[in-house]
């Protein structure tokens, strides 16, 4: 029998979590009938008696100072409605392990399993229907959670061990091959025929494990077929996308800067004193759309492991998060069936990033959120990670034949097999049998101790090569590491979360928090000892060989025997054709505004402009003690900065800068100019805080609608933009990723996301004393606008959007002049002549000025040039333009040199922005009013 312990706050104490939920019920759902919510934690234990449960309740689970508990009986008996929410069986509750550990520490014997869940007690006249709405919209995500209606009989998971089956591909006709692929492999017929031909030549049929491993290795996700394909645009053949990006990087010849590009789990550049820094940016769109908390958390976990798996192991020192959602106020009836509401998605994705990063102790301090209605079916969740590594351990390692294949970290379960498409109907809580793949919620502490062990092993030189077990699991990790040698593994040796996995499932499982290392046999004992000392499970799965084959056994049965050559090079290059059609766009005619102050407030409260501070505050951006320029600063801590500056080596003056840029809506108009905008914005953000524009490396992330027809043509232009930018600025791309499934096909509608090109920029600077923040520092300082822009290029702007227009003419960044602008701003900052600097982006010059003023706490008086159209002047969004607050005595003409510049006006002590044109005052608006507008949208979503 299970023992149940319920723990709740003493009745007289307020329940902050209950109130938080109540607030969400009222604001997000508009349900007013609930008066109070109380929460109760429910713990269940199997294998112990009531006396042991009481000991746990008193010593571990509850604290009499503020809590009370009940054993095997309800705690709250007078609620109007009460439901319990638990993880589904097979979804590993991270708390279970801690309960087992603490019980053992307390000397409790016989405990077989433990679990925890939460009861919500509602007080008020809410109807059954309202309870259902609350449950469905806020409490239970059926992918991973369920409502517990009766006490479970057992917590133990079990199942029949699966077997290996042989797939008779040799005798299949095309229809059968197609059916096999559609069912589980997602390859096209040509690729299926290649597999058939290979096994016909071998004279045998493949096992299920073999076809799975081929499908995985050849999947778009792993080999980036589109980016490696030959591209024909309007009948003219062009080089593959990846080739163009790599050739640009090679052409800029930054060998003194770049240590490794595109070959490892992240891109690496030189830092100082024998250190190197590395960066990787990933997407986790599909899992986050299904289970936003777990999807975002495991997205963070995955990209952290990419850093950890760089060279012989890097320390993760920073995290970034960039999201694209539909507006939080989107009417629920416009959300396609089966998709989650953006209000819920946004909050839960933020919670996932928060919990994984905070628990791992990775400062999250650079990011952004973009909103567009067309993300309502497919949101984009981009997570970046950066690392520090000794330069002499930064080259991608190579396993040697005889090295052991060591898996360490978490256990293997049925997680993420074939993506997260399991059927909840097949899962019953009565039998407690795991028979469907479960989406994971992430276990940050598992990854943290793995990271600690990894760095200790690296410092002792125990690791020849290392990689993350992510997509494709062991198949991908071992297959890639052993590509040049060969590898033989024993799947039955892998520690499992529960029994019942078929060999192919062990091979393909995407369980999080696992890594694979190549360790020389003589170093294995020490490696194991380090892992044990950090409470990390490590297992020798097999070894790297010199056979050139991927071999896997389950017991005595050989379930995989494939040539690495066929696995990695058997896939033919694709040829993709497209043609570019001119978009049917027009320029709107917008009259000059009547109420300027109101207009400014509407711009500042636009979702793509407004403050994201409530999000930033839930991320620990100070952990590791490295922050030298925070995401928000200024006297009240509410003025946004353009980039983050870190000092990863404590006590040293040198710093690392991280920034990014994207503006998806521009790509709806023109993906080339939109692409240049994103890249220019990324570098401008870095330069605005003082970075040297010659000391940066770039990372690309393409998140695109399915690249067919026109979308392929747009992608082609975006890639050209990246390559052109790289050559013009002499900045290398050193890592990148594409995710080309941003098309939602429902029964009666197709929704394409606005194409996303996110460019991340990171780099080094010798002394953080040469950096500046965006908050205004002095009264009476002159304000200088620097950069090239054509004010009438308003397409895709927030200003147009507020009038319901997309527009046509988007900012066309001048690549010939941009390098000089960046260098000029950098030199001005370095010289000490700049007190504050902010780049111009969404919301235009007005937004830049307002944000600088918020941080400084005083205002500005701005003179618009005669002949300018004032709304375009204030709301143009051309990237690569900057507002500089000049130190007293600085000479604007000397600072700007040959770069276009304009003296805008000066700072004033009054907390307001004043605008005039010629001798005529245009308008004045108070900072208090602007600030309220700027902060209101996210305060509403996050209840801050």
């Amino acid at each position, binding site marked *: 029998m299970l023992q149940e312990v319920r723990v709740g706050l003493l009745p007289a104490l307020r329940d902050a979590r209950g109130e938080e939920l109540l607030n969400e019920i009222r604001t997000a759902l508009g349900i007013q009938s609930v008066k109070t919510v109380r929460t109760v934690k429910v713990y269940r234990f199997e294998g112990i008696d009531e006396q042991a449960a009481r000991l746990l309740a008193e010593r571990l689970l509850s604290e009499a100072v503020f809590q009370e508990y009940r054993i095997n009986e309800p705690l709250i008996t007078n609620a109007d409605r009460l439901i319990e929410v638990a993880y589904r069986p097979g979804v590993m509750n991270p708390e279970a392990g801690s309960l087992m550990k603490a019980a053992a520490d307390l000397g409790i014997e016989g405990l077989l399993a433990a679990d925890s869940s939460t009861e919500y007690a509602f007080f008020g006249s809410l109807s059954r229907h309202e309870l259902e709405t609350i449950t469905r919209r806020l409490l239970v995500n059926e992918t991973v959670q369920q409502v517990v209606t009766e006490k479970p009989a057992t917590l133990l998971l079990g199942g029949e061990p699966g077997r290996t089956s042989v797939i008779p591909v040799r005798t299949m006709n095309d229809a059968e091959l197609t059916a096999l692929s559609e069912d589980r492999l997602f390859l096209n017929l040509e690729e299926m025929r290649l597999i058939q031909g290979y096994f016909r030549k071998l004279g045998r049929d493949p096992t299920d494990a073999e076809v799975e491993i081929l499908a995985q290795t050849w999947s778009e996700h792993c080999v980036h077929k589109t980016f490696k394909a030959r591209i024909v645009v309007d009948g003219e053949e062009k080089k593959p996308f990846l080739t163009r990006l790599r050739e640009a990087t090679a052409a800029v010849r930054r060998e003194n800067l770049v240590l490794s590009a595109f070959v490892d789990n992240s891109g690496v550049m030189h830092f100082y004193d024998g250190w190197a820094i590395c960066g990787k940016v990933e997407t986790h769109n599909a899992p986050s759309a299904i289970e936003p908390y777990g999807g975002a958390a495991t997205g963070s976990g995955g990209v952290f492991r990419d850093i950890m798996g760089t060279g012989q192991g890097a320390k993760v020192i920073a995290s970034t998060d960039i999201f694209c959602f539909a507006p939080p106020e989107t009417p629920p009836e416009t959300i396609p069936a089966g998709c989650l509401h953006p209000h819920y998605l946004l909050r839960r994705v933020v919670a996932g990033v928060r919990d994984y990063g905070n628990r791992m102790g990775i400062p999250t301090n650079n990011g952004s959120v973009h909103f567009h209605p067309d993300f309502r079916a497919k949101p984009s969740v981009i997570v970046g990670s950066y690392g520090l590594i000794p330069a002499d351990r930064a080259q991608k390692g190579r396993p040697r034949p005889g090295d052991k294949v060591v898996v360490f970290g978490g256990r293997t379960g049925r997680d993420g097999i074939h993506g997260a498409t399991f059927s909840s109907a097949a899962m019953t809580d009565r039998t407690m049998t795991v028979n469907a793949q479960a989406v994971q919620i992430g276990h940050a502490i598992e990854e943290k101790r793995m990271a600690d062990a990894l760095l200790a092993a690296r410092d002792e030189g125990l690791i020849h090569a290392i990689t993350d077990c992510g997509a494709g699991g062991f198949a991908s990790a071992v297959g890639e590491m052993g590509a040049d040698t060969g590898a033989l593994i024993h799947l039955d040796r892998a520690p499992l979360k529960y029994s019942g996995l078929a060999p192919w499932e062990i091979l393909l499982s995407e369980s999080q928090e696992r890594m694979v290392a190549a360790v020389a046999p003589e170093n294995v004992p020490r490696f194991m000892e380090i892992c044990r000392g950090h409470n990390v499970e490590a297992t020798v799965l097999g070894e790297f060989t010199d056979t050139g084959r991927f071999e896997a056994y389950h017991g005595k049965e050989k379930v995989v025997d494939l040539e690495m050559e066929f696995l990695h090079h058997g896939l033919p290059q694709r040829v993709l054709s497209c043609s570019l059609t001119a978009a049917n766009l027009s320029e709107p005619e917008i009259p000059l505004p009547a109420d300027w102050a109101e207009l400014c407030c509407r711009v500042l409260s636009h979702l793509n402009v407004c403050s994201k501070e409530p999000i930033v505050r839930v991320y620990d951006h*100070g*952990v590791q003690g490295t922050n030298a320029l925070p995401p928000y600063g200024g006297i009240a801590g509410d003025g946004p900065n353009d980039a983050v500056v870190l000092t990863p080596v404590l006590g040293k003056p040198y710093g690392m800068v991280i920034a990014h840029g994207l503006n998806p809506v521009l790509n709806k108009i023109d993906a080339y100019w939109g692409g240049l905008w994103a890249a220019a914005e990324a570098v401008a953000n870095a330069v605005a805080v003082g970075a040297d524009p010659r000391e940066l490396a770039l990372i690309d992330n393409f998140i695109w609608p399915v690249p067919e027809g026109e979308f392929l043509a747009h992608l082609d232009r975006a890639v050209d933009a990246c390559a052109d930018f790289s050559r013009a600025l002499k900045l290398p791309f050193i890592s990148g990723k594409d995710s080309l499934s941003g098309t939602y096909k429902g029964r009666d509608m197709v929704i394409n996301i606005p194409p996303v090109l996110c460019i991340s920029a990171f780099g080094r600077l010798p002394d953080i004393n040469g950096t500046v923040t965006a908050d205004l520092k002095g009264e009476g300082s002159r304000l200088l606008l620097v950069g090239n822009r054509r004010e009438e290029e308003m397409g895709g702007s927030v200003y147009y959007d507020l009038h319901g227009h997309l527009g046509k003419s988007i900012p066309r960044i001048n690549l010939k002049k941009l390098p000089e602008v960046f260098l000029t701003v950098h030199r001005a900052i370095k010289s000490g002549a700049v007190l504050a600097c902010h780049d111009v982006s969404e919301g235009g010059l007005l937004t830049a000025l307002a944000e600088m003023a918020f941080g400084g706490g005083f205002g500005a008086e701005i003179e618009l040039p005669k002949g300018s159209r004032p709304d375009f002047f204030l709301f143009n969004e051309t990237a690569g333009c900057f507002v500089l607050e000049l130190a007293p005595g600085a000479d604007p003409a000397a600072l700007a040199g040959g770069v276009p510049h304009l003296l805008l006006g000066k700072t004033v002590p009054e907390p307001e922005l004043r605008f005039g044109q010629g001798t005529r005052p245009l308008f004045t608006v108070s900072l208090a009013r602007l600030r309220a507008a700027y902060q209101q949208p996210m305060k509403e979503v996050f209840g801050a």
Partner: protein
Amino acid sequence: MRPPVIVMRTDGTNCDAETAYAFELAGGAPRLVHVNQLRSGREKLNRYKILAIPGGFSYGDDVHSGKILAVELTSFLREEITGFVAAGGLVLGICNGFQVLVRTGLLPFGEIGPVRATLMVNDSARFECRWVRLRVEPSPCIFTRGATGRVVEFQVAHGEGRFFAERATLEEIEARGLVAFRYVDAGGNTTQEYPGNPNGSLNAIAGITDPSGRIMGLMPHPERNVLPHHHPNWRRLKDYLPAGRFIFENAVALAKGEG
């Protein structure tokens, strides 16, 4: 000689490196030691003068923040810790370390045993990272010696930091002067208002000491304010002296026998 400092870590500890760095800056000789090394007897507390339990999410903060580690320490290292304290060792718990110390019973009254005070979920129900103002209170605490009345700015980064105790316990804490730090507003006055008091702590308590003054715990992070560029607005401040250093310097001085 630099006094040896043990910076104890376990699964989920994540402020260990910067805490060690703060002690190093202050003249200590910090060493990162996993709790497993203490449990196995490979490491001994009595080789050290100062025990620091840094911030983080020990064991994921499962059940309660710091609870699983507190259970582990009181189950396996009770005598060793008691002996360390009795021999004059200093104990500093920051953030998660503070949560551990109240859950072992070492704070507020210096005895391993029942939990007398606790750190609850923030009133906002949210993890929050922001800079706050603190006033150093008159207390027997040796970590804050010489700083009484000073107002300092530290960063908080926690979701469970609301200091709470029963009324009688709270009165005893106040009567014995065990409050080391309180949250104050811009005017330097004790505050219950968010965000000056970021979590709703009773009596605006941000940190406390035991009666001997040798054990201190606090929610804000002094180790994140030991370098000139740690303050978020260091560019606005002339000749800024990092306000967190004195805590580590006091501890090291006393451990050296200079205090």
